[in-house]
């Protein structure tokens, strides 16, 4: 694209033609206030706060939609512009119940809190120009589990609707009526909790005011008073980029990282479920005495484990795929080098062949012109992948689903075929320039073989099961049946999900929470949770992503490496001493 010359507030600038005035202004640190605009959403030019004066234009023009052109002269702070902004804000404050002191989003002049309030501060609104609405009441919809909608604080900017449409492609939200009777609604105006909403929370993340409020973190601190840490979600192998908001070593909220491969998008598991973990945390080692698990010191526990693992006979180990690669690697090393055992594996997890071709990224999936889904149920198991496929379909991408059982994505597919008809699917997608194949584990080898034969430009996205199954594979851990008289299970913060452990004479479970496994174990060791660990995982794109601890573990809970080091020491020390 050619460059054009434009002038903003007397400043001569060059920018790519096709950009909007707002984009150019932002790139040059010229602040134009916005409300309905969000960089992740298509601009709609409806709040009219970003109106600027463009020479030769009869009316003020919205910076967020107005394209630049050669020689354009723009004023963003003229008297006319400022008057118009103030007018818009005055109207918004008169429309519903914007009594800031009662709102959890109140309190900051920074745009990280309520953007409406911040703009009011910026434009010097000190009183209500038009009498605020005192007679009318707007409902609060609290039918969703994790967050609620207070219509009285809604400014109808429709960011939520666009997020639901354009980012999640779920199309739950819309508007009802027109004029001042306009209301944000779900589906055909049903309570949000009864709607097709998937509680991904993207709408919550983009809401500029206190209309959409997170139940847990409401009133728990201003944005300026929380710490924000970028990390990787451990809920599934998509490994979405997140920003964890913490305060006083408490996780308040998880938000999607706009800059990561998931583009800010998260699912209910990654955004909400993780914030409210089980309460029965294990904080000290425990040993079974007289049939009862009782507190023990690290030294007692480690010594007992070392003795029993050696004395009981060959030892076997199982690790959770939700552990970072570093922990898994240490676990593997502990067994091989300390215990001299190869009887190690993963508790669960499935990994399809990852060598069928080059990995696709999520942005590539989003921009694909053809998607072939072979097996799997991404809307259930790797939700963000499922949303991304739906989004691509909305933009005109051809989706062909190949599966012998019906899947949630069938309604969006151009065609749904049986696995035996895979060739038909690849033929249909042959014209695709940017084909992405999304494939599940557990299919017949000839299926993978035929995928390998697709044109070289094809990209592949494996639907791995288990958060770090791919990382585990790289350190040699896979799902397998292990055998041993002594069993060491490194469960981390994983739940049992009804799975039972193999029988053993002596069982050690390292876990963050009490479970059926810990209740049956001989020795229980405390574990850190994902939010307290640092390390890496390998996600479905085959990329190694950093997991950054953003909470401090309760005192006395060792890292996985320290735990294994201690055990190694207890195993090795008697040998060393004996050898001396």
């Amino acid at each position: 694209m050619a460059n054009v010359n434009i002038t903003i507030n007397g400043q001569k600038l060059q920018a790519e033609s096709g950009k909007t005035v707002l984009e150019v202004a932002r790139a040059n640190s010229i602040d134009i206030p916005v409300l309905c605009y969000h960089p992740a959403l298509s601009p709609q030019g409806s709040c009219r706060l970003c109106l600027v004066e463009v020479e030769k234009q009869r009316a003020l023009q919205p910076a967020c939609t107005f394209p630049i052109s050669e020689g354009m002269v723009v004023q963003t702070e003229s008297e006319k512009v400022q008057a118009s902004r103030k007018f818009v804000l005055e109207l918004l404050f008169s429309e519903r119940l914007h009594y800031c002191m009662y709102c959890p989003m109140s309190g900051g002049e920074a745009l990280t809190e309520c953007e409406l309030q911040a703009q009011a501060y910026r434009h010097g609104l000190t009183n209500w120009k038009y009498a605020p609405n005192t007679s009318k009441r707007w409902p609060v919809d609290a039918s969703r589990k994790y967050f609620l909608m207070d219509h009285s604080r809604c400014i109808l900017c429709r960011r939520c609707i666009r997020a639901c449409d354009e980012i999640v492609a779920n199309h739950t939200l819309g508007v009802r009526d027109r004029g001042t009777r306009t209301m944000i609604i779900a589906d055909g105006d049903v309570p949000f909790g009864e709607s097709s909403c998937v509680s991904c929370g993207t709408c919550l993340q983009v809401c500029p005011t206190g209309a959409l409020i997170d139940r847990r973190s409401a009133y728990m601190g201003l944005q300026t008073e929380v710490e924000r840490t970028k990390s990787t979600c451990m809920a599934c192998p998509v490994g979405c980029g997140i920003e964890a908001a913490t305060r006083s070593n408490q996780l308040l909220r998880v938000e999607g990282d706009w800059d990561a491969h998931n583009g800010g998008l998260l699912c209910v598991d990654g955004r909400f479920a993780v914030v409210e973990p089980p309460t029965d945390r294990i904080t000290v080692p425990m040993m079974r005495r007289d049939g009862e698990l009782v507190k023990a010191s690290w030294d007692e526990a480690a010594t007992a484990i070392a003795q029993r693992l050696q004395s009981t006979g060959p030892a076997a180990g199982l690790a959770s795929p939700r552990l970072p690669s570093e922990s898994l690697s240490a676990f593997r090393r502990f067994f091989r080098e300390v215990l001299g055992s190869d009887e190690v594996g993963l508790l669960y997890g499935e990994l399809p062949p990852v060598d069928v071709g080059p990995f696709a990224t999520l942005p590539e999936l989003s921009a694909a012109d053809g998607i072939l889904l072979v097996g799997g149920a991404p809307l259930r198991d790797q939700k963000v992948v499922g949303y991304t496929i739906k989004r691509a379909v909305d933009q005109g991408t051809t989706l062909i689903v190949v599966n012998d059982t019906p899947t949630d994505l069938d309604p969006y597919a151009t065609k749904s075929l049986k696995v035996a008809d895979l060739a038909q699917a690849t033929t249909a997608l042959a014209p695709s320039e940017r084909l992405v194949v999304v494939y599940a584990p557990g299919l017949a080898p000839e299926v993978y073989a035929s995928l390998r034969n697709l044109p070289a430009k094809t990209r592949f996205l494996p639907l791995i099961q288990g958060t770090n199954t791919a990382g585990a594979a790289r350190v040699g851990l896979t799902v397998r049946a292990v055998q041993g008289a002594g069993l060491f299970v490194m469960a981390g913060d994983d739940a049992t999900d009804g799975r039972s452990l193999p029988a053993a004479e002596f069982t050690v479970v390292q876990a963050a929470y009490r479970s059926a496994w810990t209740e049956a174990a001989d020795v229980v060791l405390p574990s850190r949770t994902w939010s307290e660990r640092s390390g890496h995982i390998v996600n479905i794109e085959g990329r190694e992503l950093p997991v950054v601890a953003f909470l401090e573990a309760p005192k006395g809970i060792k890292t996985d490496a320290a735990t294994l080091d201690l055990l190694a020491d207890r195993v090795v020390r008697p040998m060393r001493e004996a050898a001396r």
Partner: protein
Amino acid sequence: MDKVEVSTSQTSAGEPLFRTDVLICGGTGCHSSNSHAVLEALSAEVARRGLADEVRVIPTGCRGFCSMGPVMMMYPEGILYCQVQTGDVAEIVEETLVKGRTLERLSYQEPIQHKALPLYHDIPFYGKQIRIALRNCGLINPESIDEYIARDGYGALGKVLADLTPDDVIREMKDSGLRGRGGAGFLTGLKWEFARRSQATPKYVICNADEGDPGAFMDRSILEGDPHCVIEGMTIAAYAIGAAEGYVYCRAEYPLAIARLEQAIAQAHEYGLMGENILGSDFSFDLYVKQGAGAFVCGEETALMASIEGQRGEPRPRPPFPAVSGLWNKPSNVNNVKSYAMTPQIVLKGASWFKGIGPAKSPGTAIFALTGKINNTGLIEVPMGIPLGEIIFDVGGGMPTGKQFKAVQTGGPLGGCLPASALNTPVDFDSLTEAGATMGSGGMIVVDEDTCMVEFAKYFLTFASAESCGKCVPCRVGGQRLLEVLTRITEGKGVRADLDIIKELSRNMQAASLCSLGQLTPGPVVSGLRFFEKEFLSHIDDKSCPAGQCKALVRAKCINACPAGVESPAYLALVAQGRYAEGLEIHRQRNPFASICGRVCPAFCEQRCRRGEIDEPISIRLVKRFMADQEFTKPWQPARTQAAKAQQVAVIGAGPGGLTAALRLAQRGYRVVVFEKLPIPGGMMAVGIPEYRLPRETLFAEIENIERAGVQIRCNQSLGDDFTLDDLLDRDGFNAVILATGAHKSRRLGIAGEEKQGVLRGTDFLREVSLINRRGQGENRAAGPDPVAAISGRRVAVVGGGDVAIDAARTAWRLGAAAVHVIYRRQRQDMPAHAEEIEAALHEGIQFHFLANPVRVLGDTRVAGVAVRRQRLSDFDGSGRRRPVPADGDEYTLDVDVLIPAIGQSTDLSWLTANGSSQAIETTKSSTFVVADAFNTTRAGVFAAGDAVSGPATVVQAVAQGNLVAEAVDIWLQTGELVKPLYETPRPDIVQLYDLDEYAIARRPQSPELAPDRRQGNFCEVELGFDERTAREEAKRCLRCDLEWLDYMKLPRPQTEAQPQDAVLDVNKG
């Protein structure tokens, strides 16, 4: 001009030729007044009479004359019948179709001269029209493509496909100067060029038929009456821009238009005029109809396209413009129905033909749906540039029932209203915008004096804000805030600052809204405030709605219309019950001159009476007269409401204003002296209004009532000659003076010879006559010296059209003038005098010369005739009437001996300069006193009211001022503060004792009058008044709006009282 009288008798299909075609309008307007039944009846009758081979009956689309529907036309004669019902059919067949006679009864009646105009082209409604888009509407059967083809249909498409390149077509359209008829007025050819230049494919042509303005039906009528012309226009546009697909976006509320369109599209397919390889060319085009759900905003092109796409119909910012990225993000061209409808004619007849019609910058014709308070409502197509007034008064036939034109709203709910002063505005895009309104899509709503401009603006705002899509903040919230402000003003809760809020909200909405709906929403309010600010201020300052429309402020329209606020419904209800004294008491709380006003009041109340909207207004004045005349035995003793006060007030002038002020102050305990220059009290009531209208005993009886209240009246006391203001205030101990000196000085004509003997001033003449009679030199007799001698046996000409002129003429006639002429420069309907007075003057044999103006008084020293020049009417003046200007060279002599100019009066202010007043009092250019809100003049302690402040007015208006000035003086004397007075009296809620339904068909009675042959030579009262039964029956026709108002305001209705004591008349049975 489209005066082609092509009979559609011979079609291209070669059907037999008929002797006569009878076209019956099947447009929605006529359809709703049963035209389909007329069509059936006529077809049956034609068949029964064996005329089926000679006469063809054809249903057509709308011919526009909706107020006269069902409309029937007969060709080749061009006969037009109005309001035809099934009962007329047999007569039409017998008289017109068989015997060839036109029926006057069914012909259009020209409203002024009441002349029957049977021929289409003689009717002014059609005479000034030029029909391009509407050329076929009402002339062809819209369901027949053959009839369209017979009228050159698809000729333009053939020419385009055979001879023209797309660029040629675009050039022709650009050269024609056609501007988009949807309202924005963008050059159509240029728009096409933009779409043609866009590289992306496919491209779309879209027709905007989402006509949503209240009262607008231009697009619908075209689609219903001539769907093929739109289809042809769109096909040409598609060829020009390179589109293969088109959509007509038509609201679902137009089922007939949709059905006709779909049928027409099917016919076009059948004839090879649509679809693949049209007329054997390479060009292919398909057209689809998309039904809209009726959201007003979908008329905005981007919202319209969103709606076609299946999305919520909401606009989006432009750029990108549709020509670049429109329907499904592809280049699209959106034009209005009317623009496409004009296209084939432009292609056929050429750009220069079109450009030759109307002004250069807005060529062609404009189509309007004319509605509101106008005689000829309907659909019209006029050349651009025609003055607004010509549309309203010539094509539209002016206001019905003699009401005053007030404003015209153009551009629909997003347009603006223009006042009478804008009637000369040429109708085109730029002139209307400049005047403060918009062209819009073609709605034109005319309103008369009964429309409140605040309420009118609120009506449109209610519509526009309800239709706001709610997407952008300025429109969604701003419209609502604006509506709230207007609502509180109409409820009497507004404050002055609200006007600034209106202006600020409007300015910002116009600047900041996303689409034209929001940008134009404030239009009616802004123009309303610009042209009718006084009316807004009345609501805010006086809590009054002058037009009588705002419910919260108007208890009943009659009370509201009365300048003095007399409670007509209350006393009508009491008269109905025979309780005359109580009724009179209520009347006198606001107006002490019931008997006088029962005779001479112009009865503003009756002009607004809601009963008049059903049949005829209540005869309030005559009921009042009867009520007042029942009081002879026991004269009124006005009640003293407050204790006696030490202060005293002098009133100068014993006219209705001065006497009322004196009465009110006396009732409040002041000592009041009235100084009157003339030998008799009464002012204009005594020396202006002739005795045959107001007998002197009636007048003096009511003046005596005022004296009974303690008011002293001193006659023959002239300010300036006998005393000065200083004398009153400094010497005589008066604490305040009220100047109520009236307007007794006749204006001069300003022509040569006006000083000659025999020229008598109108007011002087009437005064002299009154005083002669008063001096007893001939009780009701026309005998004696001047001015009687000056008139008797002479030929008299009176100049003017007001009450004084008519009074002078009728007086002269009574004095035995040999001939009496009235010379008036405008037309009869423009005369400000009472219609009944004019009628009576005609009965008495007075000759009127309309459109005539005296230019010279002839004779040496005495009047020996007057030279009169004929006038013609030119453009409109500020009063909404056409301005009379001299017609070229046409002058004649009226052979008269006496000339009485009566063209208006002013206040005699000679005393101001003559006397020794220590402080001059400021006056206006029109010789009235300058007064502030409290009626205080520029001299402390001196107040003024009546004609001396307002200029010549009526008795009741003077009374109103008298009430108010007394209130103001009272407040000033008690508190020393000058405040705007509000004269309030308790609200008398009178119970409703009879069943209104019983009077549903009762008619307004007439008063008996003295026969014209018994009037000459005397001044006996002409109008004789109602008898008791008539008065009481008439009073029961009152709809009791005052009680409905109680319901509206959620106030309790008065409890049922005992039956009236006077049960002599059982009127329900009577």
